[in-house]
């Protein structure tokens, strides 16, 4: 539960702020000028802060929508990403956010309307072309949704642009706002998944894999398009069995037609992020594997990555056509 909310005074009267004020009546509210004065402070300890993160309500002023880096995944058309939030409720050991930010506090940019204006401008600019907008790059798209109400507003907005895709990427099972409305044909709800044993060890505070699979099936049953994201792929001596079993569990009773796409990507860190993450989890086996470093990127190395790529491609082909399967290489 959020106990302390730091808010930029400028957005105190914003409807999203008001919504959160109603939802968390007992939280302590502390005014700030700009979120950076708190979020970017030196000498913060991400791991300790993660024990009791505060919520920071802020206004985003620029860079609302950015082009996705090449190799992000689905490459058939122009894609962008946006982050209405920094950081995540969950505490996944491999998460790049712990290497990217010095703070574990959650920043929620309450001015959703400015994101939507910026998205509209991109749609106008690329008039006639199919665009995809990814949410959930610097956060989990749905994990905070009960409080933020973001998904509902985003879906209302995207319902006016049926040729433009929205991907909500998540590990959350907070899907009630989606189930309460008709499925949007241009929205993909993409779940990040790992074999249950691996997720239990690495995806701290996140819903179990069985609950995520159950959420997938509920959404698919309600007509939503589903994305399956196996990223990062985690290596163990029995990884083939674990991933095979995971695919079987997901596909059992799931209509393949409801699957929009599947993507997978190897575990990779920029060197600096790897060092920071390893220093936070000094005793975790994830950071004890003899990783390789090439051109500033720490990974399992080509041999293991190729084995995992080949296996996943062929295994997933048993369930779904090849043109829906993508490899993410960043």
């Amino acid at each position, binding site marked *: 539960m959020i106990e*302390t909310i730091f808010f930029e005074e400028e957005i105190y009267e914003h409807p999203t702020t008001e919504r959160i004020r109603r939802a968390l009546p007992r939280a*302590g509210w502390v005014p700030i000028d700009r979120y950076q004065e708190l979020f970017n402070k030196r*000498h913060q300890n991400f*791991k300790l802060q993660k024990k009791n993160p505060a919520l920071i309500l802020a206004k985003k002023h620029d860079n609302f929508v950015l082009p996705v880096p090449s190799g992000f995944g689905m490459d058939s058309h122009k894609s962008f990403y946006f982050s209405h939030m920094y950081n995540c409720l969950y505490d996944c050991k491999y998460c790049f956010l712990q290497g990217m930010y010095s703070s574990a506090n959650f920043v929620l940019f309450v001015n959703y309307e400015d994101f939507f204006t910026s998205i509209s401008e991109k749609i106008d600019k690329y008039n006639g072309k199919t665009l995809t907008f990814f949410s959930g790059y610097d956060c989990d798209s749905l994990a905070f949704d009960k409080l933020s109400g973001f998904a509902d507003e985003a879906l209302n907005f995207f319902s006016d642009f049926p040729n433009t895709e929205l991907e909500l990427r998540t590990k959350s099972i907070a899907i009630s706002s989606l189930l309460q409305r008709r499925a949007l044909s241009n929205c993909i709800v993409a779940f990040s998944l790992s074999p249950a044993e691996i997720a239990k060890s690495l995806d701290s505070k996140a819903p179990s894999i069985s609950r995520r699979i159950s959420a997938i099936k509920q959404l698919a049953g309600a007509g939503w398009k589903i994305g399956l994201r196996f990223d990062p792929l985690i290596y163990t001596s029995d990884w083939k069995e674990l991933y095979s079993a995971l695919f079987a569990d997901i596909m059992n009773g799931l209509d393949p037609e409801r699957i929009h796409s599947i993507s997978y990507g190897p575990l990779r860190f920029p060197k600096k992020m790897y060092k920071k993450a*390893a220093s936070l989890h000094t005793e975790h086996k994830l950071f*004890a594997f003899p990783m390789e470093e090439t051109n500033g990127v720490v990974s399992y190395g080509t041999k293991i990555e190729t084995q995992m790529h080949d296996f996943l491609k062929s295994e997933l082909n048993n369930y779904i056509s090849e043109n829906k399967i993508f490899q993410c290489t960043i």
Partner: protein
Amino acid sequence: MSEFTDVENNTELQFKFCWVTALRAEATPLIDAFNMKIVENKSLFPIYANEEKGHALVISGIGSIKSAAAATFLKNHLKINDHSAWINFGIAGFFKGPIGDIYQANKVVSKESGAAFFPGLRLSKLIPAAILFTVSKPENGYKEKVLYDMEAAGFCEMAPSFSCNELTYVIKIVSDTPSASSSLITKHLVRELIEKQLSKISDILAEIEILVEEEKKRLSIPNEVIEFEKRFKFTETNKYKFREIYRKWKIAFPSKRLDLSEFLNSQPKEIILRLEKEVLLNAEDWNAL
């Protein structure tokens, strides 16, 4: 100097809590409660400590700069570890009563520079939070709904760099309000107000101690590593590589001991290579969980 005669050379002192108070009257109840003894009384900043209980305390005098300077003095004088908690503790004015209430400052603002600090993890289940203004002259107007003191901003400028922001705390007891003038504050009153909160302070310390222990564990360098680094001349680069591969090796082989006698004729690079080889071999049957 008292029984801490070896302070200058001792790098193994393990203080969990480092207190910085402005006044002796604020320090005395803590000194008594945690059975601290004088360590340094010849300098501007008297230091008290009880290593067994893990407490060290410095009396800074009044003012923001003195608070920062005293904290730095304590850090250097007792060679305080990177995982210790730093607590600026004392009395403060508040816009409302009653006096004697205890607060954690969740935002500290220097009224002089405008700088803002956000010390500590919030301990909301134990202690209410309030914003604190550090002023350069005593505040008797209590115009804002905040705590007023004269030290915390200076302390917050410095202390997070000694360990981290999440182990830096500002805890204040209300001593004066619009209806209880600061002119009524006496040593006796300060002592009384603090003593009434000692039980609450113990609860707070128990919570902070969990964080201290976690950081201590994370930052600790195993004795085996220290032994090897004493025995062999590692370059800085090789020292980093050795510590990193040792960490992985120890996770892979938790029950194994790195035996110095096996490496007596080895070069540092050979030690690193051997550990790398063992970790690599082990990876063939890797269990990530």
